[in-house]
């Protein structure tokens, strides 16, 4: 199988988020970047599929040179080759179009994305990509079974699940459940060493027109101090009369 995993390069989940003085972009000073947590589930699923069906895993990122350590990490975890499309990921549609142009010119059986990037929380790229390619798409994918050229995929829907069948190629937005947390792999020394000699190809960007423009970022207001209460009746009273939450 020719497996593609789209990788987003995002601030670590523990990162303190600050913005530049103008408030128009993330201040990346001191921020550690990692493989987007949702993408890790998809990458691990690709490893499982390769182990079961054979094939090649390509990891793909749209971004500048600073994202290469993240791609190398994916190679260390077990991907076979990496591609970076050299473009600033200004918004979801620019990223989706870059991905689409690469995918349309190649043959992939399965395109695994993460449900959402934890930086801009758009949850847009995978569905846009599938629509641009006119390929089937399952979001919040928590189960995926490949049988020859067809797939059965289950996605979370509000309060339940929906299961779909269709033909490959398929695009999924993965999350925990696609593989379990305990299945996630961390790169070992051997993986890190071999990753250095695996191919990482840089492709030039093809399209750039963004549809949206971020004009301002601010941090949420700091919460006022907690009101500690020592009995439940007082809590119920406050929730009803003060917070009007019940």
């Amino acid at each position, binding site marked *: 199988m020719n497996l593609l995993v789209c990788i987003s390069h995002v601030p670590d989940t523990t990162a303190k988020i600050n913005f530049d003085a103008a408030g128009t972009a993330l201040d990346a000073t001191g921020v550690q970047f990692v493989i987007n947590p949702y993408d890790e589930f998809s990458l691990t699923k690709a490893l499982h599929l390769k182990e079961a069906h054979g094939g090649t895993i390509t990891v793909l990122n749209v971004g500048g040179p600073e994202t290469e350590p993240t791609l190398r990490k994916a190679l260390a975890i077990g991907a076979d080759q990496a591609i970076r499309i050299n473009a600033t990921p200004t918004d979801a549609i620019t990223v989706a179009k870059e991905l689409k142009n690469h995918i349309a010119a190649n043959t992939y059986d399965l395109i695994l994305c993460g449900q959402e990037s934890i930086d801009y929380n758009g949850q847009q790229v995978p569905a846009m990509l599938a629509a641009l390619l006119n390929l089937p798409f399952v979001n919040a994918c928590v189960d995926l079974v490949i049988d020859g050229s067809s797939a059965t995929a289950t996605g979370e829907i509000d309060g339940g699940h929906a299961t779909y069948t269709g033909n490959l190629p398929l695009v999924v937005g993965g999350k925990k459940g696609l593989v379990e947390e305990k299945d996630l792999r961390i790169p070992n020394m051997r993986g890190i060493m071999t990753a250095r000699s695996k191919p990482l190809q840089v492709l030039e960007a093809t399209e750039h027109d963004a549809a*949206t423009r971020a004009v301002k970022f601010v941090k949420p207001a700091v919460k006022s101090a907690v009101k500690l209460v020592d009995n439940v009746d007082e*809590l119920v009273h406050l929730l009803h009369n003060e917070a009007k939450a*019940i």
Partner: protein
Amino acid sequence: MSIIVFAEEWNNQFKKASFEAVSYAKSWAELAGTTVTAVTSRGAADPAALATYGADRIVTIVLAATPYGIAQQLAAMAEGAAGMVIAGTSIGRSIAPALAALAGGALSTNTTSIPTGTAPVTVVRGAFSSKGIETIELTGGLPMVSFVPNSVGIQERAGAGAVESMDTTGTDLLQVTEKTIASGKVALPEAEVVVSAGRGLKGPENWAMIEELASVLGAATACSKPVSDIGWRPHSEHVGQTGIQVNPNLYIAIGISGAIQHLAGVSASKTIVVVNTDAEAPFFKAADYGIVGDAFEVVPQLVNAMRAFKAGQ
């Protein structure tokens, strides 16, 4: 040049988020000086109900089975529209980006405000898992908004409500083989009250009191990530940065430490209550009300107190 809004239904009833979506479209239409066109499934819920929230024209269609099919149907109506609104339900989150790709839209998802400006359309959205608030301009195409359910609210403002049917088809690239939604339970993303518990509960056998509290409050149940990782609770209850993001009116956190990744998914809740034995637990910094105490004593008392309160209402 109307604002088009998709009204989703389930089991022949409009979702609450659909009324919020029509309310959203109405607020936007008032700013832009235009009307609201609601699109919904034919023969399911009573379309006239949408007029209560501001729909001037209600178009019923034979809905495709998958989000992509629905996105194609909506894209076919996009020409000449002034904007589009989709609630950020699970289905809506699959429809909106596909629609934007098909119809040349400029889309904001995870949106938490009605437009704050119309030239260009400007909205506010959550970013960096609630650690940032972004103002975004929808400049390069038909402006489209997918908003976080329970963020802008439902408002009654009557619209003309003329109902008409339209023929339109979308191609489903997948076959739906099964759809299950747990009945008798409040769906987590739509819940107004969420009762959530963490590793402090010690084991899955102790969740009866959590479910009881949730049932008294008409709340959905949720849990921290490790609780779902070790299989005490289903993955679908995992909230936080890497789970479901919620913004209920009331979030009650019991035996959860309040790690940064957990807070990222729940801090948008309007009121937060924390019950924890450890007065130093980081969650207290993000809480409105707190009880420093043992969940095994506090929760049964809270169940009784809430039950008494509800009975008195």
